């Protein structure tokens, strides 16, 4: 065992999971999952509700006992040494409320006191600044907005300067602005050298934030790669889309070079092509001839949504 862990550290694996399995009665929540999470990366577990993301995360955090498999976090056996494990990780649970009747700073102090290497009061004040809550230092939790509560809850995961931070659906229920703020915060944490493991069912979150993503469904990891790698692996034709003041003619578009498939509605178009350069040139020439202005012109390859659709035959949002 010790030999194996040493090898993993050489390979920069901060978390190594093998054959992880968990079922509740007849329902299998996590099916023999193997994962390796690297030091310093933002690792995402992407999947719909009920995919087994939270169960997997909570087993790594030492909160749930697996039925089988091994978990090593920074060389600590997460199943047998939960007390040692908890000293070096930071955990944000999905939808936790916090104690009422304590101020935000008192809450941070309380949580810091739980750890051998908890932050000092000075460091906690810095932390409050980092999550943009200095003004709310002496307010109670119930006086915070949703986004502020979520930032406080992330600050609570950092009070022991953890080596790995686990965030379970950190942006669920937040408005787009609050979500972007939180992404910035996660990037900051990661830049400071901490490994971040997060779950999400938002594909744009995984794409924006994660160095590598594991796509999970029905308790199994279906694919694991960088977002770019996952999309590239699909070999999806690039898509050109845009809109015009007047409808275009479908026949003329399909006659352009490289076009595989095209869809039109009153003002918009979406063209799948295997030769984006030729198609685009043809499209621009046609628009000029017709005296039409092309707006919102975009060329995109597939996204993680397409990857998920391809892997499961279902849409992620469904």
């Amino acid at each position: 065992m010790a030999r194996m862990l040493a090898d993993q550290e050489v390979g920069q694996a901060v978390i190594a999971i093998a054959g992880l399995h968990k079922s509740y009665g007849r329902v299998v929540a996590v099916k023999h999952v193997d994962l390796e999470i690297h030091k310093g990366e933002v690792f995402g577990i992407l999947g719909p509700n009920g995919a087994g993301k939270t169960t997997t995360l909570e087993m790594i955090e030492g909160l749930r006992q697996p039925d089988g498999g091994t978990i090593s976090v920074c060389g600590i056996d997460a199943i047998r040494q939960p007390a040692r494990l908890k000293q070096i990780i930071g955990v944000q649970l999905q939808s936790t409320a916090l104690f009422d009747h304590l101020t935000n700073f008192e809450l941070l102090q309380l949580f810091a006191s739980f750890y051998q290497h908890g932050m000092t009061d000075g460091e906690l004040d810095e932390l409050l600044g980092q999550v943009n809550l200095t003004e709310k230092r002496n307010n109670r939790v119930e006086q915070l907005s949703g986004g502020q509560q979520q930032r406080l809850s992330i600050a609570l995961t950092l009070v022991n300067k953890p080596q790995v931070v686990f965030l379970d659906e950190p942006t669920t229920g937040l408005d787009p602005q609050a979500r972007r703020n939180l992404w910035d915060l996660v990037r900051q944490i990661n830049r400071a050298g901490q490994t971040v493991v997060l779950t999400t069912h938002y594909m744009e979150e995984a794409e924006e934030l994660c160095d590598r993503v594991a796509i999970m469904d029905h308790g199994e990891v279906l694919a694991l790669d960088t977002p770019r790698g996952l999309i590239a692996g699909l070999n999806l034709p690039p898509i050109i889309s845009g809109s015009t003041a007047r409808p275009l003619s479908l026949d003329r578009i399909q006659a352009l070079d490289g076009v595989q498939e095209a869809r039109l509605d009153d003002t918009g178009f979406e063209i799948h092509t295997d030769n984006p350069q030729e198609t685009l040139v043809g499209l621009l020439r046609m628009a000029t001839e017709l005296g039409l202005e092309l707006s919102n012109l975009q060329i995109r390859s597939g996204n993680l949504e397409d990857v998920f659709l391809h892997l499961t035959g279902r849409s992620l949002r469904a």
Partner: protein
Amino acid sequence: MNRFRSLTIANIKMTFRARQALFWNLAFPIIMLVLLALVLGNGGGFGVTVGVVGDSHNPITAAARQALGDIKDVTLKTGSEAEERAALKNGDRDAVLVIPGQLPTSRQPVPVTMYYDQTNLTQSSAVVALVSQVVQGIDEHMLQQRTGIGPQVVLNQQGISAVSTRYIDFLAPGIIAFALMTSGVIGVSSRMVGYREKRILKRLRATPMQTWEFVLSNVISQLFVVLAQVAILVGVATLLFNVHVVGSMGTLIALAMLGGLAFLTIGFAVSGLASTVESASAIGNVITLPMMFLSGIYFPVSGAPGWLQPIINVLPLTYLANGLRDVMEKGLPISSIGVDFVVLAITSAVALAVSTRTFRWDVE
């Protein structure tokens, strides 16, 4: 240890900042005490019952009866010395005057003894003053009548501790016991279930905090609530209703702490059994309501039918309420209320055993 200290301090802060819980723990029992004392108490007013023991042929006895009977607020009773002193002990007399049956033949003074209930200072000092005045009047009268040859009447005063008959003296310890029970059983269980429902327990579980640290810090903060309850309720009873704590304050606090511990462990046990705050308070009510009526909180249950007595005698609240009364009203020492301590200790142990089996960190 730093961890445990911080957790305990945080718990105490939270407990005393939770206004709604404080209302139920402190204000509500005070309101109940005051209202019940006003509605059901004897309503104040000075009324004194004096027993006179003595041969009616004795002129002193006759004079005493007449003099006392003339006073509007005095109810006069007559009987043998044994009967009257027993009545005093039970709280049915405020004072008993014992006059010797035979007058001395010589000119020796006649010793008249007054026994009075010293438990209630306000009442007893008034009674002593009243009866002394009457006896002095008789002494002077005798002197006048026989111009110097009549017997001199000498009054000996002897205070005894009688059982109080005032409702407030019965009620106050009962309300303290009731307050400790509800804040323990219902207060603690709904707080714990609330923490669990909001996933706060699970979040704490994700830190290195130990279970014993969490439980013990909550026990300590609840014992602070117990102290506050005892201090405030005894204070209100003393200031507003002249309740006099006869026994030692130390014994009172020790008993209240143990009672508080017994009921807060029941609260922990309930929190393991209930899944929502609503069901916790429902289970809490099922446990506390029968005790509230059967343990003699508002009225004595010694007169309850025989078949009820075994039930009454297994309820922990019965022992807490009786123990508190024995200390506050009768001034019994800790050695005389050992049974109450033992029963409450056993209750704590049983409830703790149940809690360790039922306690859950997470909702599922």
